């Protein structure tokens, strides 16, 4: 049974068609990558899935229920989690407190929330920094915190929006293994990524989005040599050159 399904989803902003008639299915346990050049509409897709925007046409189904019109906090409760491309921590609060906010999604008291938060921080390697202010963290740690916060909500599906952006190769490798660890916990992952090595290493399946439309999907290997992928990113000349 599919965990997430998009049927004919479309969204436009003031005349500009951001997402056009998108069909997409993700089954429980998968890791799926979403790629496409800048402006392709990838973040909009995430926003539509998680309720920050509502689709003009089409529907989103999560775990069997139609969730098109639901708000982000409802979806979080149902088991959807998300990280943001530009991270959104609660800067003036401690790392621990940041994670606790997420934990409260599932528990009722501050004691319980703290426990869950500590577990999650341990899992993401931030436990030693739990009392630091979120705004004082390095970019790599902020990304970890973004993951920790989302994980504290105990999601079934985690939407990761460019979680590798801005990281150096070492940090990227660390995050890749963290993402694998998360997947190992049984969480389904849907990632937007520009860093190709990460996408190829992690994803079981990759979807290409361009101008808001799904162009092609397939395994990483298939996608790497698909002319349409090359064309989307680099333009026609490169396709010809490769051929």
């Amino acid at each position, binding site marked *: 049974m599919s965990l997430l399904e998009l049927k004919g989803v479309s969204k436009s902003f003031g005349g500009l068609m951001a997402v056009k008639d998108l069909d997409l299915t993700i089954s429980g346990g998968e890791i799926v990558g979403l790629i496409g050049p800048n402006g392709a509409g990838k973040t909009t897709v995430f926003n539509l899935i998680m309720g920050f925007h509502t689709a003009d046409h089409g529907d989103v189904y999560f775990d069997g229920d139609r969730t098109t019109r639901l708000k982000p906090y409802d979806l979080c409760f149902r088991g959807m989690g998300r990280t943001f491309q530009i991270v*959104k921590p609660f800067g003036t609060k401690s790392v621990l407190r940041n994670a606790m906010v997420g934990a409260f999604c599932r528990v009722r008291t501050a004691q319980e929330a703290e426990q869950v938060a500590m577990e999650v921080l341990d899992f993401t390697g931030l436990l030693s920094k739990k*009392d630091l202010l979120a705004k004082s963290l390095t970019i790599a740690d902020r990304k970890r915190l973004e993951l920790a916060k989302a994980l504290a909500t105990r999601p079934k599906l985690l939407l990761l929006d460019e979680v590798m952006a801005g990281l150096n190769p070492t940090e990227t490798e660390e995050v890749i293994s963290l993402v694998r660890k998360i997947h190992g916990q049984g969480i389904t992952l849907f990632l937007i990524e520009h860093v190709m090595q990460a996408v190829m290493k992690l994803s079981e399946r990759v979807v290409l989005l361009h101008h808001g439309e799904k162009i092609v999907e397939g395994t990483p290997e298939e996608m790497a040599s698909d002319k349409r992928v090359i064309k989307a990113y680099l333009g026609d000349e490169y396709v010809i050159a490769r051929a």
Partner: protein
Amino acid sequence: MKKETGPGRRLRIEGKTWLIVIVVVTLLALPLFIRSVTFFQFMILILWYAYLTTSWNLVGGFAGVLPLGHAAFAGIGAYTSSVLFIHYGLTPWAGMVVGGLLAAIVGVIIGAPTFKLRGAYFALATIAISEGLRVILENIQKIGGFEINGARGILLPLKGHSPIDFQFLDKRYYYYIILAMLAVIFIITYRIARSKLGYYLTAGGEEKEGAEALGVNVAKCKLIAMAISTFFTAMGGTFYMQLVHYIYPRGILSLDLSFEIAFIAIIGGRGTLMGPIIGAVLLVPAAELTRTYLGGSYEGVHLMLYGAVLMAVMLFRPRGLMEPLEAFYRWGVQKLAPQTSVAADEVK
């Protein structure tokens, strides 16, 4: 890398329990030793402001917005309980609660559209609504059969010493009542700060989308905070009426009062537990003393003080005076009892 010194830590009061206990016991015992009426009037004023600012703090501090029209709710409370008392003989103790409920409803109705506005727009909206309410009350002589006399206000029939009517001749009764009210709102704030609502409020106030993605219904939380805050603020209005026996629109629904409440809370430290109280304790006496000894011309001088302090705080310690005061307290304890550990306790 900065250790957390933000609001999370400032909510911790375990390390200072003994201090709080001493203060509370002293406050409770004062009436046994002191007879001066003026003294108690003074104390009541301080406690009243502390009460109002702590109530305000739930919205202005925890929810992270800037309401500048909160006095209107005190006005709603005062008018409601008074009208019910005069026309139905309903004891103000009950009228207080009714006023509070009415204010909570109005607060939610106002809050729903207003919370969608950005920072400064929100502040302006609260000002406009508060002033609008005042204007309406000034121009109406009767609401649905109840006389409210427009701009001339309502005079409370004097009953002398009559506990059932919430009227006392001895100011010390009022002192204990406002002390109790302050304790209640303080405890409620304390509990909220440590609860899911508290965490959700501060998160939603700081970063709305990030919070929503974590399951926080930011709008609902703000409305809950608003309802609680306005409920208690209204009761503070009733208290005021029972104390001075006379209210009129410009007096109780005044922009000056709304602004004062906001300033005091901010100067003390909005979003902290003790901040508003500390602010009141520092500023109200200062203002009263300035007004008594220096003010020949109306309220002029004490306002200069408020204005100057506000500017200074915004320039140098925008988060309020709580932090420096706490640091000073720690320094003091170290000097007096070097063995005492004042290291940071767990973060709540």
